[in-house]
């Protein structure tokens, strides 16, 4: 039992530290949101990628960067309603 508790605690610590670490009850919304947010942050984090996208969009890099962070706020639409 102690082991289980410890594993649980470790998992929670991991989840707090590394955003996006999944658990048994990860919902589709959480999972897809995480993927989308990781993707956008990777796009702005790699300078050549940001340039590539900004060229494709015909917009300056700084503008594209801000737009990407905006999209990270709600990347996959509204969260599902909580069911009681």
């Amino acid at each position, binding site marked *: 039992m102690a082991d289980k508790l410890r594993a649980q605690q470790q998992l929670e610590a991991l989840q707090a530290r590394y*955003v996006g670490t999944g658990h048994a009850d990860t919902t589709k919304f959480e999972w897809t949101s995480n993927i989308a947010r990781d993707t956008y942050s990777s796009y*702005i984090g790699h300078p050549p990628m940001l*340039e590539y996208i900004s060229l494709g969009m015909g917009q300056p890099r700084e503008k594209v960067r801000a737009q990407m962070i905006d999209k990270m706020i709600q990347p996959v639409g509204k969260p599902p309603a909580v069911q009681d």
Partner: protein
Amino acid sequence: MASVLSSLCMYSLTLSPPSATTQAIVGDFAGLGRQQILSANGSLLTIFEVSRLQNGFIIHHTHDIFGIIRGIASYRPHSAKKDFIIVSSDSGRVVVLEYVHEKKQFEQIHLETFGKSGVRRVIPGQYLVADPKGRACMLASVEKNKLVWILNRHPTQGFTISSPLEAHKPQTFVYALLGLDVGYENPIFAALEVDYSEIEQDATGVAYEEYEKQLVYYQLDLGLNHVVRLWADTVDRTSHILFRVPGGTNGPSGALVCGVDNITYRHMNQEAFRVVIPRRSGATENPNRRRQIVAGTMYSIKGGGFFYLLQTEDGDLFKVALELEETKANPNGAVKRLKIKYFDTVPVASSLCLLRSGFLFVACESGSRILYELEALGDADDDPWFHSDNYPADPAVDAKPAFFQPRPLRNLNPVETMQDLNPVMAAKVVNLSNEDAPQIYTLCGTGARSSLKTVRNSLAVLDLVESQLPQPASAVWTTKMTVDDVHDSYIVLSLVSMTLVLSIGEDVEEVTDSGFMKETTTLAVQQWGPDNLLQIHPRGIRHINADKVASDWHAPQHRTIVTCATNNRQVAIALSSGEIYYFECDSDGALAKSTDESKMDGTILCLGLGQIPEGRVRSDLLAVGTDDQAIQILSLVPDARTGHRLKQQSIQLTSSPPSSLAIMSMKDRSSQGSTLYLHVGLISGIYIRTALDEHDGTMSEIRKKFLGHKPVKIVPCVVKKENAILILTSRPWLGYSDPKNNSLALTPISYLPLESAWTFSSSQFEGMIGIHEDELRIFAIDEIRSNITQDSIPLTYTPHRFVSHNSLFYVIERENHTLAPKMRQQLIEDAKHKAIESGKKNGVTKEEDDETELLPENFGYPYSEFHWSSCIEIVDPVEGKAVVKSFELDNNEAAVSIVMVPFDSRESETFLAVGTGKNIGWPATQHENFIRIYRILENGRSLELVHKTKLPKLPLALLAFKGMLAVGLGPDLALYDIGMKQLLRKSLLEKATPSCIMQLHTQGSRIVCADQRESLTYVVHKGQGNRLIAFVDDSIARYTTCSGMTDYETTVGGDKFGNIWMLRCPPDVSTNADEEGEGIHLLQKGYLGGTPNRFELMMHYFTQDIPMAVQKTPLTPGGEDVIFWAGLQGTLGVFVPFGRRKDLTMFQELELAMRKEDKPLAGRDHLAYRGYYAPVKGVVDGDLCERFLLLSRDQKQAIAVAIEGNWPVEKIEASIWTMRGLLAF
């Protein structure tokens, strides 16, 4: 068979580093008391200075950190004399660097690990800022994490940094970060944040509609050693960039928060002040379009005060200033108002650097980086200021927009541009102009600043003088009159049967009383002794003393002088009979013949004699080249035993008879700084350099390269105050020591082929004089840092793809959000009519013509959403070097693909096929797709539209295939033949690839389909039944950006994450696919949702830059094939295949050792970096191996000893040189 490679392996080299700027900052990093610019480009850190004297850039140092640089910041620790550098990279470590100017290198002051490596959402690294007083720095990630380090100066340990302090806030995004200027109070960092925790919970969407963006202050309490969230306030929701406002004694402190149509001054306990961003007025501008700030810089004026230059997405620079309450008595007073005015327009920048020396460095997002000189601060002109008094501070309240009239530059003056390729949209290596080596043609830039650039491996030349000669000359010399002269006095020309002497002065005139023998050809001219001259001609030697009295030494009867070698005190001549005579200068400057003679077996072809080393009376060695393919080194010192000179010291055999010899020392990496070298030119066009031992004449360290197809002539010269050699063959080359690593560099000179050349020095210019046919030319080489020259042809819109035909290029270009020229004209004319009409009403007639004079190169095209502009341009890169003709597409049609296709059904007449799409990328609009077929007229210089075929999907890829047109339509592959009114579909393979075909290649019946997301698929076409069958594809999803076939089975490609890979179809699958018949046996069931077979991965390598073109091609004259690639950010690189197992093992071991000995500067693990997305396979990183040359002798020795097999340092260096020198540049 041990020397045969079992699997393919390549050596990766960078030819030209990326030129896209991630960030550029200003600081005094070298501690020289002057400002330098530190620029991060790709994985490179470069420090350069802007010099007013030389009117250009001086590059101090460049270092490849082998990691992705994400941000750089500078800080000056208390009482330090220079700025230190903090680099944020993908290493998960924070690194503090010091630039040591004397050693020209970066030194790691601190390397502190804080997180996982890689570019991740929650690992700090995206934002890096330092406290302006140099006491702390903060690294933040896009989400949640922020780390603060305290930077200290320790009395004994030097500069230290603390362990990180956390300022995390979960579920929060950071848009921008700033180190606030608070003087010497506790450091504060400001962040623009959005907390999304509520949005994540709210299913109604109300929270999302109403979320707020906050400006948050994080204070680092230096006393308590922790970080607190000091203050937060809501700012405009569109804000995304922050600028520092000076604090302490210099200003009110705080930040400028910029968003859409909004610049607001914010600070704790201060009121907010806001101005709008003025919009362009003009007929083609939409008055309702709101601008935002994309870049900017703050500048503190020396006597106090400060202002900002902020740039909008159009490129307009605005001067923004704060007016303070009481400026003199209390400079730290409250802010009275914020004001903004138009300054000038420059290309959109990723970083702006305003230097104290009055320069503005604009690191453009696309196109060459430009240096402007500040001519005025925008105070004198009549552009109006817009004050914050007129605008409500609350961004939610609508403000009246402000307008300004853009105009040509008034305050700035462009002085210098860096020749940059960034961004490269496409590239091709072809030899259109029939030169020795092929040229690299690249499509560069965006919008109106785009161009087609011809890139050559050559040194730029400054052409100074050219003058016609009465008859063709065979050789040229210049000479001084006395040994102490600074400049040359005579030019001596050897014509067909006479010698011409010209004097150098105000005018170049023929000299009649020079004392030279006129009616003979000349072999050599030499300034002799203190003030005499020598003329060596086939019949003898003429000695001319200071009073121009000539005396002759005659060659023995029936013999002539065939060749000679001279220096100031020594002459060696070779006679037709094979004897060598040797002369020295005696005490009164006369010729003294040595009694020693030497007789050679073969015919002597050339002699070589070095300059006299300082403090010596003679040069000790004479090199003799004979037609039995040998070079002998003779000693000119009397033998200790016999007293004889001209004793043979060593001999070297060559692959063909030598044609020219020279002995000259060159700068290198040896401990003395330079070494004596023997330079050999062979009749076969090969140049050889060998190190020559000064004492015993032994030769070692051989470097050789094929330079041209004519016998090589070698001319010693001086370039940039260093010894160099001019090598003349079918084109001129320069041999010099590479300024980066002091190894031998051989680069062609972009100049005409020369018969003969010599150094030239006069009071007006220094350089080289040469003969091209019957022209005398004087030229100079003044830049050897870059071995690449570019010719640029401007294009209209962003170019995307091109094809060549008849040495012309056909380029497709398109521009999103841009009004087509017709529409622009219409709007301008409408506005004119309106103005005239309203003028008539008011009784005034005013001509509005200022709209037309704004060049789109500087001001961009008028922005308008939901408009495409596109054109096809014919460019002549060889003869005319200009756009020949341009064909605009209308109706929002944009060209996406282009190919030349000979149709079998039209007797192989070649047509130009262009794939186009209407309203591409706009949601909820009618999309239409076409292929336009053009007939080629006027030998390719014009086009005529034959017909337009409507297609169901966007034709992103076109290919000429078996006399038909293969088209990639989304995931489908179709074959079309030409008809009278449109193209006729002959065959179709649905779902040839999973998502979207973006490129096609072919060999034989095989078509390679490159998919946008799903790597490659090979398709075979069966003539019988006209069927297309996909038979092999990949097991990994690669987001292909470019590809090229290297052989029938193999394709090399690049993806948008920056990888280059090579895939090979298994041999049995390949043969199976080509079996005759209808290919029924290929129609087996697919495997795991794909084709029945999979590729083998041959090679995989992370390049960091996104490859946009990849091609198998030779790059050097007579060189073998290499894989050339061009990256988006301007990188040009090659992969050179290894030929021998022995070399490969050595390089693999060297790479391994270098990874340990020369750890990447920012703390990234090199192997992990090159295997960023997938483990590196089949590639050795040549850029890392070349750093071996920069190590100290001891380090090199240690590495060499550890490498298995007999590899002394010299041999490793030679191998490194050969890998780059022979097949690349």
